[in-house]
């Protein structure tokens, strides 16, 4: 059972990374729609990872909201704007070198910390992932952030209505 979970983790993780690469650097197709579909696959793999962590609610939300609603909107926008195949941008060699160096440095640090850590070591977070426990947490310990997020959404709503409305003069 433990083994099966470990294998599943590697399968989902590898798929997530491959799909994420395909979103931004697909060698076969440069159509935005293909990228968007690969993003859906990435989201699906992430949902799988969440399930393995026993965060079932998060996994369901990931599928419903991100892979479902958000990506559908994304596709609508792409179709409405009628985007053509992306032109390959000229990347300046200086920014390429700078980007590679910083990514390499961060990767090296991650790999180093990964090797230095033994399994089971390090800080443990006590997070509950089931829906009822999450709901209780949201309305007890995390009540305040929860309420502020509602104000945040109000601001976003007012902003969007205001910016998208045509002035009548």
């Amino acid at each position, binding site marked *: 059972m433990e083994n099966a979970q470990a294998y599943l983790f590697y399968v989902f993780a590898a798929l997530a990374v491959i799909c994420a690469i395909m979103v931004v650097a697909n060698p076969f197709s440069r159509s935005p729609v293909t990228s968007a579909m690969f993003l859906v696959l990435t989201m699906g793999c992430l949902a799988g990872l969440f399930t393995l962590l026993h965060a079932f609610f998060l996994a369901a939300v990931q599928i419903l909201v991100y892979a479902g609603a958000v990506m559908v909107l994304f596709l609508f926008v792409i179709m409405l704007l009628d985007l053509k195949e992306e032109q390959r941008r000229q990347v300046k060699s200086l920014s390429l070198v700078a980007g590679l160096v910083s990514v390499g440095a*961060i990767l090296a640090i991650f790999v180093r910390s990964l090797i230095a850590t033994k399994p089971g070591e390090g800080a443990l977070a006590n997070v509950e992932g089931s829906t009822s426990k999450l709901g209780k947490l949201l309305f007890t310990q*995390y009540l305040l952030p929860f309420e502020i997020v509602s104000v*945040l959404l109000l*601001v976003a709503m*007012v902003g969007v209505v205001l910016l998208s409305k045509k002035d009548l003069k």
Partner: protein
Amino acid sequence: MEVLKLAAPETVLVVIALAVLAVDLLALRGQPVSMRFGIGAAVAGLGCAATMLMLLGRHAHANLFDGMLVVDPLTNVVKAAIVLLTLFTVLISTAGKFTEHVGEYLALILLATVGMMFLVSAEDLLMIFISLELLSLSLYVLTAFNKRNIKSAEAALKYFLFGGMAAAFTLFGLSLLYGMSGSTNLHRIAEGLAGKGMDPLLIVAVVTTLIGFGFKVAAVPFHLWAPDAYEGAPTPSAAFIATGSKVASFFILAKIMMIGFAGAEGSAAWRTFISGWMPAMALLAALSMVLGNLTAIAQTSLKRLLAYSAIAHGGYMLLAVMANNEAGMAGLLYYVITYGLATLGAFGVVQVVEDATGNDSIISFTGLSRRAPALSLCLLVFLLSLGGIPPLAGFFGKFFVFSAAVGADGNHLGLLWLVILAIAMSAVSFYYYLRVLKAAYVADGADVTQATNMMAVPVATLAALVLLAFLVVILGCAPALLMGLLQAGDQVGH
């Protein structure tokens, strides 16, 4: 229900924001913009005043939900200062002709203030991030408010894209911190990190967090959005971004560094650099002071000049964070609050002149002393305070910050090199502040023709500006008024 009691000032502001929105949309449709602005500002101003009274009248000490809402005298004073800046922003925007959406404008200003207040009260990474987003999102929209000006939209887009990147960096740093310490509470993070030394992962966390907040406080080299945003945004919005949001961001940056990264300071003393957040911040501070001041000299638009001066002042304030003790915290708050008052006033003057002459280039200020004597006297006070001339508030701000940085324990005069740089650079800053005042007071002969007719100054704006100038002078003559509050709060808080 303790939440509701402790968060009562914030709750009142949210309700007032909704009330402003409702009154404007339901009752005042079809009325002239100036009347809608007047009534909306009256409601918003009364709400701000009530909130300030509530904040200054309470003496509670509380820590709710493990650091998500911390109420103590120090946070009360900082919140009251933020609400005061909001009140003045509302007053100087009443004469605005940049939008017809009065209710939305005032409501967003108030909601951004709510974000700042929660930010000030937060000692928990989750709350810090959410309130920071509430603040930023409101500011993006406020920047884009002038829909008749394409520059406003451009400024907002730049600000939004840079801000989004910055939020991603902040989130990356914060999640690493959480991963390393297993807690989102700042005090517990410091405990979790204690004894681990400078793990490379911790360095990544420090650097990305600093990058994120560097964008927020517009420190070089993350300052690129600031001049464009200040120039393109409606002037009251720019004033709000430059003042209230600075107070909240610097306070929370100092808190994260002093509490959360306690033990990971390193050292920025001359020739004895030890890795930690100090040397990284020293770099940001030095670059901001030098580049901000030198670039400001070349500006012709006063709003861009104020933007670069804001960047330079951000450098001085980072110096106060690096003092890393109570004196540094009190000095930082005194500095950022008095800087906020003076900058808000300067933007207020820009707004009036911009409305009268159509642009904000320094040439439009020619002969201001004859066209609007009271206005140019206010401008004189604000700019001299920003430059740091005694006996104005800006001088004492610089004095407190520099003495805190020099006297910081454990540094053994290590930060002296930065303080010397800061003093040299504030001498440079005189030049560009005085250049504006020269245009206003010593008009050249060729420009006298356009400088004869009087300029109409809206009453509410003039009242706000005179009050601001008065505050700047009073806080300069009696700095103990504010400093006493800050120090008392700080000592009780620790």
